């Protein structure tokens, strides 16, 4: 039997394959801060406009409607987000990304129209938004190996952004400022409508 002869190119290929197999796992949709899962979750939220903009729009909607609405939203939105995040991470379920235009169009439209919603309706919208976005976040965190700690980071960031946004909208709404908020809402709604076109393209 003729002995197997491995030339230099074969050795190089072998080394290459061995090193490739040692490469760490790639993480989809993950921003790695190097500071741990909680901070990775915060960074994920801050750098994901599909999550950040609806949260801000909801905060502005609640702030424009008054303190009662704002107080409810800054409590309900993070709690719903946390619940859905844990559910998404545990059950590995998520809603399709192609629906990300829905909160933009609805919330932006409500802000632009300055629609006089009752507090109960604002609360229900906050719960729905939290459940919708939290489910996707929980699934993404589980996929990235961050689990519930990543979700906790996201929810913390949601709470801060919502509180600051609602406070700003509640405090600054005299005269032109209210119009400016509504213009911003119309831009968000327009972006949502275009995003729907992108998703159907």
């Amino acid at each position: 039997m003729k002995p197997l002869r491995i030339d230099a190119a074969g050795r190089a290929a072998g080394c290459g394959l061995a090193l490739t197999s040692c490469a760490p796992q790639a993480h989809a949709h993950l921003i790695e801060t190097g500071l741990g899962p909680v901070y990775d979750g915060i960074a994920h939220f801050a750098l994901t406009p599909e999550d950040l903009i609806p949260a801000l729009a909801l905060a502005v909607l609640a702030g424009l409607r008054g303190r009662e609405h704002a107080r409810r939203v800054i409590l309900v939105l993070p709690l719903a987000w946390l619940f859905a995040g844990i559910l998404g991470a545990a059950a590995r379920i998520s809603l399709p990304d192609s629906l990300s235009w829905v909160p933009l169009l609805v919330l932006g439209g409500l802000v632009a129209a300055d629609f006089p919603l009752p507090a109960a309706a604002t609360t229900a919208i906050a719960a729905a938004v939290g459940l919708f976005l939290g489910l996707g976040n929980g699934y993404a965190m589980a996929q990235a190996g961050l689990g519930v700690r990543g979700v906790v980071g996201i929810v913390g960031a949601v709470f801060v952004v919502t509180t600051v946004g609602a406070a700003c909208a509640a405090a600054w709404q005299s005269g032109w400022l209210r119009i400016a908020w509504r213009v911003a809402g119309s831009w968000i709604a327009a972006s949502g409508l275009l995003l729907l076109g992108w998703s159907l393209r």
Partner: protein
Amino acid sequence: MRTPLENRSFIAVSLAALASPAFAHVQTGQATGFLAGLLHPVSGLDHVLAMVAVGLWGAQLGAPAIWLLPVTFPLVMALGGFLGLLGVPLPGVEVGIAASAILLGAAVMTERRLPLYAAAALVGLFAVFHGHAHGTELPPGQSGLLYSMGFVVATGCLHAIGIAIGAMHRWPAGRIALRIAGGGVGLAGIFFLWRAIA
């Protein structure tokens, strides 16, 4: 003994294997999407003039048209963009864009005071043409949301520029200057119309 070519191959393969893992769908390139969207509406003079003219006309008409028209335009433009993205045909898009510059310029030049709903309907009608033209031109592979946001923000900023310029309406000389500017927009629209049908 290994040849220099074998040595280089060995080093190249090893270095390739040591490369960092690719992070699928990470948020890279989104700034490109936003900037590309931001630059898209300002890339055509016909769009720029019409959008600035909306702001000028709104400033002439005063409240509530001063903010209602610039809110109407991006929203209805997004509807036109939506139709364009879906490939829904709209006849006479270039003619409609040119007509928008002519009529909006004429409205500014003559300080035409239409009822609010009629002004909003006129602006909305033209916005469909502008949006459709943009929608059919949108490049594939961009970050959809950020591109859309940049696109809408740039449109809104063009209206804001028009409103800021239109603030000179309160002075007699500024009022004349605005009417001259409206005439200029209308003339440019006639040029765009000639180019569209020639």
